[in-house]
């Protein structure tokens, strides 16, 4: 398979990197992976369609599992798009430990597959996380990542939200990273959330001390346009069994998690 090339090349681009998520990450996005031919005028928007219409030759798809891969791969290939697939997964200290403490000290990382071999490794990591590490959700640990790691095939990224930095700065939890098997890339986002600058400062500070780490600007995309936020919010409320009048979703205030916002920032 040649669809996954070098992530590092992509990360060298100027500007902000769009990170798409589809409805395969259950309850997290209202974008589909449908082929442009299957997109209806008043139907849901598609990541593939957005990429084709906006001349994006390659795109990063960050999902919560492997379920969307086949459709993403098939439709990306049909439309001459380069897919770079990653899983945003929970990483804890020890995946065999299933306790509240272990849960509270876990955080999110994104593992991207850069090659076909990387795809196999990613499936293996995710399968073990879902089978042996499952506790409310699939969980990997650093041992699992280390044993299956290859810098040639995989890339480790620290997402802006829910990372160990986010947790250590904005919560009372203590998530301890282990980067002795690879050097991760740190993502920076700006979505008009009141605490964005607190996280950004902490990421910059962490990345610039000791072993200097690479930071890149990214934009998580869950819907196409700002006006779609209300539909996205409705979808989130349905999943949360709440209502628009009382969403009960912490910090659900920003309409910036959209392609339009990325487009505005990147011309």
């Amino acid at each position, binding site marked *: 398979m040649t669809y996954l090339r070098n992530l590092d090349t992509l990360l060298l681009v100027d500007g902000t990197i769009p990170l798409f998520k589809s409805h395969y990450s259950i309850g997290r996005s209202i974008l589909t992976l449908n082929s442009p031919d299957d997109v209806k005028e008043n139907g849901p928007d598609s990541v593939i369609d957005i990429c084709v219409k906006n001349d994006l030759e390659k795109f990063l798809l960050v999902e919560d599992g492997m379920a969307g891969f086949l459709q993403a791969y098939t439709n990306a290939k049909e439309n001459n798009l380069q897919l770079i697939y990653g899983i945003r997964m929970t990483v804890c200290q020890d995946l065999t430990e299933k306790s509240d403490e272990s849960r509270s000290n876990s955080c999110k990382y994104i593992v991207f597959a850069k090659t076909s071999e990387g795809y196999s490794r990613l499936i293996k990591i995710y399968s073990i996380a879902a089978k042996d590490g499952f506790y409310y959700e699939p969980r990997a640990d650093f041992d699992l990542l280390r044993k299956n790691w290859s810098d040639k095939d995989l890339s480790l990224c620290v997402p802006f939200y829910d990372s160990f930095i986010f947790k250590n*700065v*904005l*919560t*009372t939890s203590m998530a301890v990273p282990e980067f002795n098997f690879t050097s991760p890339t740190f993502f920076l986002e700006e979505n*008009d959330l*009141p*605490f964005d*600058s*607190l996280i950004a400062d902490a990421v910059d500070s962490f990345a610039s001390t000791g072993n200097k780490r690479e930071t890149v600007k990214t934009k998580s995309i869950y819907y196409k346009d700002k006006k779609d*936020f*209300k539909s996205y*919010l409705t979808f989130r409320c349905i999943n949360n069994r709440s209502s*628009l*009048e*009382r*969403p009960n*979703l*912490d*910090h*659900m*205030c*920003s*309409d910036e998690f959209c392609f339009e916002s990325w487009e505005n920032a990147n011309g």
Partner: protein
Amino acid sequence: MDSHLLRYDNKKTLVFIDCETFNLCLNSCHNLPWQVAMIKVTGDKIIASKDFLIKWDTKLKIGEEAARITRYSEKAMEKKGVPPEEAFPTIQDWLDDADHIVGHNILGFDIYLIKDYYKHMGLDYRHLMHKIIDTNCLARGIKYDLPYKQEQGLLTYQYKVVHQRRRRGVKSNLAYMGKEFDIKHDYSKLHNALVDLELNVKVWDKLKWQVDI
């Protein structure tokens, strides 16, 4: 020795703010503040107050329950309501000039409405963030035994409390805190923004002795 603490500072201006809204949504696509009240305090003294009823050009309607709880009156709105553009300059002046902006659950709710109000006026709100004191956070921090350490920064500390999982039986709403502190107040009139704020000032006057800000 503690003279640097805010509780001893009689020169700093604190603006207490509270918004009454159509519902509990955190984005202006479905919610707007129809009442914004502010009280300006220097030291222990209330030096001014403002109470705006804001008439938005919107199709959004306040729900029946929200109208009852917040005592929304269509008549009062017709009589006293002003367009958001008319109320904003004063709100902006007060918030931008304040040394601290205080509210009960302001980080969990009001700041999102203020953010969108600033955005509606084509302005950025982010310079307000580091001035915020959320009395709900301070109260919960005390109840959860999470001491504030000055080196971590007040905003960061407050977010740590915001993200702390709620514990069963631990209450920190404004009315509860008022009663817990034995504060005399007309509790039957709560949920009017200005009445809430008067209680908020009294609750702050108690809390400031328990947290070293």
